[in-house]
């Protein structure tokens, strides 16, 4: 019997993984004074003009960003909201591939989600799982994350970014909803 569904699923997941890797950056910290910077987490290219969203706990102190094309750029911290664990970084770049942002309020329990990040230093690694619970302050996903996933995208099966992975609680992935990201960008950056 041929794999009528699994092969197309695998192919779709692979193309989605590549797309998400193209909008995910590494965020590196300079707190120890090293020039290259230590890996701190991940971030999402929110807009093509150089706006990157990550977690507030990732963007502490001076940071640089490694783009998907391996360019290393220093980043300016434009805004930070510790309560919602969000930070906006701006890099001098234009024409970046930006994420398509989805609506976190439309998520249904059981739908598939994908995460990309740098867990334990593995660059742009993929995790797959599903929405565990909705209607809470964080999106809860039944999905394996590791330190280094922080700030990276949580995307739905269409590849739309619905959240930023923020923490692991009792084995569950907790992500800041994309709605909170929209609000943060609108209120703190006025755009």
């Amino acid at each position, binding site marked *: 019997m041929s794999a009528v*569904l699994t092969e*197309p*699923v695998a*192919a*779709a*997941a692979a193309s*989605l993984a590549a797309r998400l890797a193209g909008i995910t950056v590494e965020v590196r910290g300079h707190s120890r004074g090293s020039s290259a910077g230590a890996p701190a987490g991940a971030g999402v290219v929110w807009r093509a003009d150089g706006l990157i969203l990550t977690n507030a706990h990732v963007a502490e102190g001076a940071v640089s960003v490694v783009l998907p094309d391996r360019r290393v750029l220093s980043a300016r911290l434009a805004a930070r909201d510790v309560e919602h664990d969000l930070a906006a970084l701006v890099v001098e770049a234009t024409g970046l591939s930006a994420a398509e942002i989805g609506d976190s309020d439309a998520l*249904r*329990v*059981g*739908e*598939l989600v994908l995460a990309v990040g740098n867990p334990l230093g593995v660059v742009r690694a993929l995790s797959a*799982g*599903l*929405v*565990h*619970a909705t209607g809470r302050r964080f999106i*809860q996903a*039944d999905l394996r994350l590791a330190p280094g996933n922080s700030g990276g995208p949580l995307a*739905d*099966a*269409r590849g739309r970014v619905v959240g930023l992975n923020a923490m692991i609680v*009792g*084995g*569950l992935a907790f992500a800041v909803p994309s709605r909170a990201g929209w609000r943060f960008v609108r209120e703190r950056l006025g755009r």
Partner: protein
Amino acid sequence: MDALLSLSNDLAAAVERAAPAVVAVHARRLPSTGIHWRPGIVVTAEHTVRTAEDITVTMADGRSLPAVLAGRDPGTDLAVLRVADAGSVVATLGDDAALKVGHMVLALGYGPRASWGVISALGPRWRSWRGGDIDRLVRLDLVLYPGFSGGPLVDAAGRVVGLNTSGLARETRLALPVTMVTRVADELLQKGHVSRGYLGLGMQPVRLPEPLRAQLGLGDGALIVVMVEPSGPAARAGVLLGDVLVALDGEPVGDLDDVQARLGSDRVGAEISAVVLRGGVRTELRITVGEQPRRRA
């Protein structure tokens, strides 16, 4: 449509189909999950029911209802509750005989909350450490989050194929097959407990000497009787201290599990044959199986 998106929609639809019959059971400090099995009947994991009184159930629509414990069986880790609600949606039951290793499944908790994984192993009938006979081993590769015990294992179409529990194995996530849940629930509703056959014997495994084995055509294991309960079922049939039990109900017995396997609830009151060696001589007795005295719940 994109295959991944179709799969995602199917999984979300499976949750939506199963969730209306998923309830929260408040019978210990933290809630567990239950399944609205039939109108007014909720099944859950027995180990999550710590109290017999003041139990409440939160239905999927958010209504909180008082529940009465109709029966419990620690051996299979199943408990049945009655609630005064015949109107809510009940579970759509699937066929656990169709399960295969590798099938994609969901575990649901009250809320609803979802966990995703696969059937990792299937096995034959087994005995739990709590002494219950489980029809079939259904081992899961997924996370049972806190409060998930008692909740449904759901197939990709949203049908309930099992009841999840972390109470029967420490490191392993298991599901009780749906056909077994129905059978045990029926017995609990009828009698309040699951009866098990009883001989009134204490026995210990022994190896038989080779000449005896060859002479009588027996296997190498048997059970020596070290205690006979006075006036118990075996005592009434004439079993004596020191007898060596080699067969029960026509099947050879080498350990206590073999004996228990011949003493299901259907054998209570039935007369079964027992073959014992007494002074090296094969003797056949007829024992009327009693009912195992119930331990305090």
